[in-house]
């Protein structure tokens, strides 16, 4: 046990102290922060305010166009030809509305010396459109406020009936949450699985392994490595969780107000906005609809055991490979189920109760990824138990098989091995 601990510590500390680990761990939350704040940053860097002069020759918009903090406006009088030459002294841009025909409104122009943002153009377009619409309604003798009142916006609320309880199912949230978890799992299995494989190959390549196996049992070496690298993954996960939470808090406190004041939300398609906001609001009001503790438990379980199951296989492949090309041919049978799981997962997220979804979330090769996409949809609990039991069982089998291959594989140098050889290793006493 002490020896596994020594191997574990070596694996953990050499990896956590590596520059690449520190960089990736910090860089990814920073990238998320950057992506989230980019729209705001862009408006901030864009010189702050854009002064706009409006020359309204139609006289229709004098009261209906408003400026904003970052786009102050001022109405000017006169002729467009005289203003064209001199607006740049006092203003950044000149919006000219000619005497327009309500039926065919055209010829509205924005004169500027610098390129102006698309959002600022839509800012005015929206206001002018609204005014023209209102004028048209008036012309036809229709009460605009009445029309607004008559407009319909509906949202079908889906309710899951299980036993006596009725639960609101947040389909959009379930879909997004499930896909994010499954995709993350996919990424982590590949990333850390290859890390194990490479670690085993490096020990073989650097020829330190023979010194090691005279002091540590191959099984202890393999398990120490697998658990050590799992701890690296969990450390990274924990740091990400903390940093991303901090970013969200920072974001909602200091950045969100800026974002809502600009036109970012207005540009989102209307249906998506209403549906998503509706569900988010609903989710915040009633989080019990999603079984959060169950989701956290399931994610943690599949994250750990999915990783453990695949990592033993990756360790076995590393032990029988002398070089990258050899490793590639042996990894193929492991990679294919992982990639297939991801493809199935997208389908399952859409149809969580199909037979494909059922089988893929039970079979241990795909369950660590596929089950995560299903779990927010309240699946029958016996399916979850079956899947968990099978994954744990398969982990023991894969550990046993891989341990056998690993034991012989790490001491073989320069021999091209076939699948038949691997079979012999497993059968050997």
């Amino acid at each position, binding site marked *: 046990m002490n020896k596994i601990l020594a191997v574990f510590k*070596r694996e953990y500390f050499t990896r956590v102290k590596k520059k690449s680990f520190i960089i990736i761990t910090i860089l990814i939350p920073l990238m998320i922060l950057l992506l989230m704040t980019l729209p705001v940053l862009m408006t901030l860097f864009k010189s702050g305010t854009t002064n706009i002069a409006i020359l309204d020759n139609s006289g229709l918009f004098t009261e209906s166009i408003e400026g904003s903090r970052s786009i102050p406006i001022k109405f000017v009088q006169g002729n467009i030809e005289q203003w064209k030459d001199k607006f740049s002294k006092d203003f950044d841009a000149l919006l000219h509305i000619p005497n327009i025909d309500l039926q065919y409104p055209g010829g509205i122009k924005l004169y500027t010396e610098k390129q102006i943002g698309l959002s600022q153009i839509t800012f005015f377009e929206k206001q002018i459109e609204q005014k023209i619409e209102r004028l048209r309604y008036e012309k036809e003798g229709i009460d605009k406020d009445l029309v607004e009142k008559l407009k319909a916006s509906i949202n079908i609320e889906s309710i899951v009936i299980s036993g006596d309880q009725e639960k609101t199912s947040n389909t959009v949230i379930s879909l997004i949450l499930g896909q994010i978890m499954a995709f993350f799992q996919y990424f982590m299995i590949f990333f850390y699985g290859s890390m194990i494989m490479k670690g085993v190959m*490096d020990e073989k390549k650097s*020829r330190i392994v023979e010194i090691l196996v005279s*002091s540590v049992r191959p099984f202890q070496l393999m398990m120490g490595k697998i658990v050590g690298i799992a701890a690296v993954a969990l450390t990274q996960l924990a740091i990400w969780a903390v940093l991303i939470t901090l970013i969200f808090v920072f974001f909602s406190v200091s950045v969100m107000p800026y974002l809502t004041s600009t036109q970012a939300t207005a540009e989102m398609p209307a249906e998506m906005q209403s549906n998503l906001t509706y569900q988010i609001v609903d989710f915040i009001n009633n989080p019990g609809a999603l079984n959060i503790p169950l989701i956290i438990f399931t994610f943690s379980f599949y994250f750990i055991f999915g990783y453990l199951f695949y990592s033993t296989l990756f360790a076995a492949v590393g032990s029988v490979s002398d070089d990258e090309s050899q490793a590639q041919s042996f990894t193929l049978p492991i990679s294919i189920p992982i990639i297939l799981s991801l493809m199935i997962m997208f389908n399952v997220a859409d149809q969580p109760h199909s037979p494909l979804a059922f089988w893929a979330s039970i079979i241990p090769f795909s369950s660590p990824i596929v089950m995560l996409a299903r779990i927010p949809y309240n699946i029958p609990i016996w399916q979850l138990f079956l899947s968990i039991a099978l994954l744990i069982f398969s982990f023991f089998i894969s550990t046993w098989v891989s341990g056998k291959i690993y034991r012989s594989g790490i001491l073989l140098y320069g021999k091209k091995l076939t699948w038949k050889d691997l079979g012999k290793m497993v059968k050997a006493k």
Partner: protein
Amino acid sequence: MDNILRIEGLTKEYENVVALNNIYLEMQKGTIFGLLGPNGAGKTSLIRILTGITLPDKGKFTLEYTENKDFDSLSRMIGYLPEERGLYPDMKVYEQLDFIGQIKGLNKTEIKEKLNYWGDKMGVSQWFKKKAQELSKGMQQMVQFVATVFYDPSLIILDEPFTGLDPINTNKIKKEIIELKNQGKTIIFSTHRMEQVEEICVDIALINKGNIVLKGNLEEIKNSFKKNIFKVVYEGTLSENKDYEFDIIDTNDSYLIIKDKDIANTSPNSLLKKIMQYVDIHSFVEILPTLNEIFIEQVEKISEDLKGGNNE
């Protein structure tokens, strides 16, 4: 006798190839034992059983008078420098040695104390903070040697320890091996380079195709294989046609190689007397066979015996 290691009937087969066939060996405390044989003879198979890396199909061995030692205490008592050896390239030298100390079961203070001692002794301390990949091959070999001996094992197994070493480092390690022997350590020196063994080993075993071809005290073996031939540096003339009391096996402008015809009653003195009658002698030296010659002769003899056996 003080046999620290006693090997009794070890047998190991790999996929119908007999790697070791019923091996019996004894080693005394405080000696350097030469385990000799060509590549693929079974040396590494034997070492892997002794270090607990593999299990024998049959047979057993006793280390320090107890049988069936468990893996952990075996690994603590044995220092093993494998032929295929290396270090973690991206780990600092001290950290790797510390790690080896930990998996051998030493505590932190023991490790520190012993590493300081051996680090200074072998000139390795100056590289403690460097990564292995920054060291030259020779430096790495010194680190590996320290990794093999620093935790004070009683049996030290060195598999081709001098491969890739320059003459200076070879000497340094050779000196260290002899010093370890004088401190009472038992050293198994495994190699296919017979000439390296002749300098430092007392007892040897020659192994070929899984069988022990020859074992025992090196001097006794050499004497038992001697052919009673002598190299004579002389002045004078010997006629080629004349029939002397000795055969001239080889001749050269400056020396002769001779052998007594009366092989049953020969001795160096009697042969010297015989040749002194004809020429002036400057030097007279017995030629003992090299281990290489003995080995080749033995292997050939065995394969001839086998052929003979088949014909009958």
